[in-house]
């Protein structure tokens, strides 16, 4: 009897470091020894794919790395897969970042997309431009929406943007699409000064932001939403190019299952010990 009580007490009051340890094991395990688990594609990812699949050589897309490097890890799969599609379709890209730490990210991404860049002869200046850290705050976003060339004159490398594809860009109305990869730094500012004015937007956000970003999809401001790393993995699956997302999905799946097991065990402990302990005695 006391053994059972001891077990219940353990389930109710276990040390949180046990969770840390098990989560660590199930995350690291599949990464060290990969195996393949099937995944399903959500309608949100399909809608996102449909938007980028319709892009063509006449479209100019503003790609915003609205993340610091830490968030990039969660968004990386969606970034790589969607930018691959944009390059395949020949859409023009203007890349901007909204965090000083993110200035290194575009080059990292472009290096990983070197195969498709060289195959499509996607050239700097004509097909894409990297502007660097141009969105430090909402004021800067507002300025680029009102008069782009009044606010930005040079690219990340200090060269003038005159004579590049940006000659066609005047203000918010010049963009075919804004593709925001976000942890929430300037996403609201982009909505305020671009989305609400009518510039089409799509977003790839981190997991915790999904519930708060969905209303923008139903209101039509976002044309589509790609959910975190899972959405990225689904996009990789759709385009048939496996990448970091699909690799991470095993850890992702197992992590969720471990959490579910802990919730079940915790509730068993709650009914077997905590609640029993809390019951008033005597009368």
């Amino acid at each position, binding site marked *: 009897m006391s053994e059972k009580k001891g077990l219940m007490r353990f389930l109710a009051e276990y040390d949180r470091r046990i969770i840390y340890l098990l*989560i660590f094991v199930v995350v690291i395990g599949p990464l060290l020894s990969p195996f393949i688990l099937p995944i399903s594609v*959500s309608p949100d990812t399909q809608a996102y794919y449909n938007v980028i699949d319709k892009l063509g050589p006449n479209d100019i897309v503003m790609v915003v790395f609205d993340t610091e*490097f*830490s968030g990039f890890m969660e968004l990386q799969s969606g970034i790589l897969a969607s930018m691959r599609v944009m390059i395949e379709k020949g859409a023009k890209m203007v890349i901007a970042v909204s965090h000083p730490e993110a200035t290194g990210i575009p080059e990292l991404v472009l290096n990983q997309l070197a195969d498709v860049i060289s195959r499509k002869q996607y050239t700097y200046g004509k097909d894409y431009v990297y502007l660097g850290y141009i969105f430090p705050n909402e*004021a800067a976003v507002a300025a680029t929406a009102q008069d782009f060339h009044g606010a930005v004159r040079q690219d990340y490398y200090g060269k003038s943007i005159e004579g590049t594809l940006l000659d066609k860009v005047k203000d918010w109305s010049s963009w075919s699409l804004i593709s925001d990869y976000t942890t929430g730094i300037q996403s609201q500012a982009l909505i305020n000064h671009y989305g609400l004015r009518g510039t089409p937007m799509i977003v790839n956000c981190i997991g915790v932001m999904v519930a708060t970003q969905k209303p923008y999809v139903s209101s039509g401001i976002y044309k589509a939403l790609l959910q975190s790393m899972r959405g990225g993995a689904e996009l990789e699956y759709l385009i048939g190019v496996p990448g970091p997302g699909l690799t991470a999905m095993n850890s992702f*799946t197992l992590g969720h299952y471990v959490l579910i097991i802990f919730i079940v065990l915790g*509730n068993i402990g709650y009914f077997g010990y905590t609640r029993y302990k809390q019951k008033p005695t005597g009368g």
Partner: protein
Amino acid sequence: MSAFFRSKEIQLAILILSFLAVFIPYFLNIPSDHPLNVFSTKLILIAGITNAFTLALAVYSQFRRGLSFVRRRARGYIFKIYMMTAIILMLIFWTMGETTGPYHWVMYAIITPLSSVNYSILVFYMASTGARAFRARNAKALLLLITGFVVLLYQAPLTGAIFPAINPLGLYFGNTFAMAAGRMFLISVTVGAIVFGVRVLMGKETQVLGFGSEKE
């Protein structure tokens, strides 16, 4: 002169002027080369430049404080030496160029891995909090637990591949309950922010504008 610029009236006047310069072009149907738009863009740029100068001042102030720590050999002064050395080194590296060289290397080889690792630690805290918070203490908590359970199962991609029936259920929770809550937050937060903004423009938020001492 500095007292004039630090007066409440002048600060509020600048605040209101800046607000109007952004607010009016946003609502009015005017072309981007209209003088009002040009003025607005210039003002935004001036704000950005002023911000940059303020940052430079803030770095200078940190440096001075660090020096004071070191001179007094106050507790933790070693860390201040480390900080000042890092600031000087980064400034030197920065002059060599941001896109290549040591500055680039520090960002790639030091900042980014540290930042990523710290972010990923979040998963442990989230898991621990989630595991402790979901307890069927009463009927409402039980409903939350069941919903959370379904959403967690749906979020694991394997579940949807094995039991496709979980997908519409998970989507239903996300697209109705979660979205309704998300909308509620957006509406209430936006209204709260506008009311707060009006109070600031009226000079009523004395403490955050730095007038706390004048109040009493």
